[in-house]
């Protein structure tokens, strides 16, 4: 699992999701195309665009891909979701990505430093932490300070990953010291522990709560604003279809994209 040095293309798992999700895309016809039509020849768009996106963007980008294919018939969006750092490693190793959407600036900067980004990345969304508790909330957690109460089993991300770094920032800002029972390496592991009822509370992103269904309840807290996570998006240098990549980026940044992201809980950049 360590030190992947991919050469070639065959080893990347590409999830192609084309199922239309209900409740999306039925309104605002044409909004996507007008925003994305920077070249003015949107009808000529064709081919496949490969989008590498952070795992937390899974549900929103799946909707956006469907919308993109609807607005631009004849195009195909191939989505690949993973942790941002994994995606960066894969792109550096030569994975054929056209668009990269990162969950934090640090990982995007790694690609910029590696000269693998075409132009400048643009921020398209923000995300903040929230407290996740099992729907029954057995430990009666209602505020960030409650997390430090003795006996409350709190799970957070390890400081090496973005969600953990954000948690540390909030801790510093509030002057609260958490004694987590586990420091997971991904936010999904935090969510999993809370959803399974093993942990009394966890720190996850606002958007994660909506993905977890009814098993987990989110408790917003003010200090979350101290650690806002910004999502940048960019076209990957060496993309074979930069026009298509630019069109997809435009969709994300445009009104349709922003609407879908907002409905999932993301904030504006």
């Amino acid at each position, binding site marked *: 699992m*360590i*030190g992947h040095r991919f050469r070639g293309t065959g080893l990347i798992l590409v999830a192609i999701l084309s199922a239309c999700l209900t409740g999306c895309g039925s309104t605002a016809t044409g909004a996507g195309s007008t925003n994305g039509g920077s070249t003015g020849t949107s009808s000529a768009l064709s081919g496949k665009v490969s989008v590498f996106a952070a795992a937390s963007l899974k549900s929103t980008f799946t909707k956006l891909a469907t919308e993109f294919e609807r607005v631009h018939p004849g195009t195909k969006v191939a989505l690949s979701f993973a942790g941002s*750092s994994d995606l960066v*490693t894969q792109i550096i190793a030569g994975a054929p990505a056209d668009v990269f959407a990162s969950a934090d600036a640090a990982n995007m900067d790694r690609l910029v430093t590696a000269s693998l980004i075409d132009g400048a990345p643009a921020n398209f969304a923000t995300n903040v932490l929230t407290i996740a508790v099992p729907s029954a909330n057995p430990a009666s957690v209602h505020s960030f300070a409650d997390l430090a109460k003795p006996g409350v089993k709190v799970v957070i991300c390890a400081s090496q*990953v973005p969600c953990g770094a954000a948690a540390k920032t909030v801790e510093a800002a509030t002057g609260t010291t958490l004694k987590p*029972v*586990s420091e997971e*390496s991904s936010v999904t592991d935090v969510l999993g522990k809370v959803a399974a009822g*093993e942990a009394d509370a966890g720190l996850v992103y606002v958007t994660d709560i909506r993905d977890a269904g009814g098993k987990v309840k989110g408790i917003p807290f003010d200090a979350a604003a101290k650690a806002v996570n910004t999502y940048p998006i960019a076209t990957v240098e060496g993309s074979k279809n930069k026009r298509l990549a630019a069109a997809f980026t435009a969709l994300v940044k445009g009104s349709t994209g922003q609407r879908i992201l907002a409905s999932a809980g993301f904030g504006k950049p």
Partner: protein
Amino acid sequence: MRARAGGGYDGIPAWIYAIAAIGAVFVLLPLAAMVVRVDWPNFLTLVTSESSLTALGLSLRTSAASTTACILLGVPMALVLARGTFPGQRLLRSFVLLPLVLPPVVGGIALLYTFGRQGLLGHTLQVAGIQIAFSTTAVVLAQTFVALPFLVLSLEGSLRSAGQRYEAVAATLGARPTTVLRRVTLPLVLPGLASGAVLSFARSLGEFGATLTFAGSLQGVTRTLPLEIYLQRETDPDAAVALSLVLVAIAVLVVGLSYRRPLAALVETRTR
């Protein structure tokens, strides 16, 4: 290549050697690639950081504990499977070997729903004041779960190939079943038991998925070396590679030990 010194005709076609060589390269090349990738000037610093040493120590401690658990549970299981006759024996063997083919994450989920707070035994354990989730015990449980089949399989094979003739002789000489087990059966299969234990240890050391799912990850408590590597990879790939090499070295050492003849000889002289 066929006429090696001291070996006569071996009956293996030359092209088989060629394919076998490709197979060997397939296994060894990634290891070599990793060795090449290691940041050697900083290697010592990387692997002796506080978090690394803590993770290594935890890994060794938990693996030793789970190997002990494997021996305590696995020896009777192997004996019953190899020597006993009871209905459902075949079925039991298949199920015992299940963790061997199960994705470790699935094992972790299964353990979670057994020993977790909301699990099958969770309430009972909680009443008894036993908290398993997020504890080192959970790590040992996860490791034992995935490593047990290695011990059972290895020992059962030894028991079968050893046969029961020595045991029959011992019994007619007046030894009661427990004496036969202690003085004849176990010494006879000691090499098999030793290699089974070593394999279990190696498997415990490498356990990742079940631990991550079931036990969590906290430095000094549940974050074993593989979890530490997984985490380091996020920010410090050099540390991850260096630690990986440490794990590979330990695995090579451990597996090498179990297949070395001198070990069997050592074991034999110890039983005097």
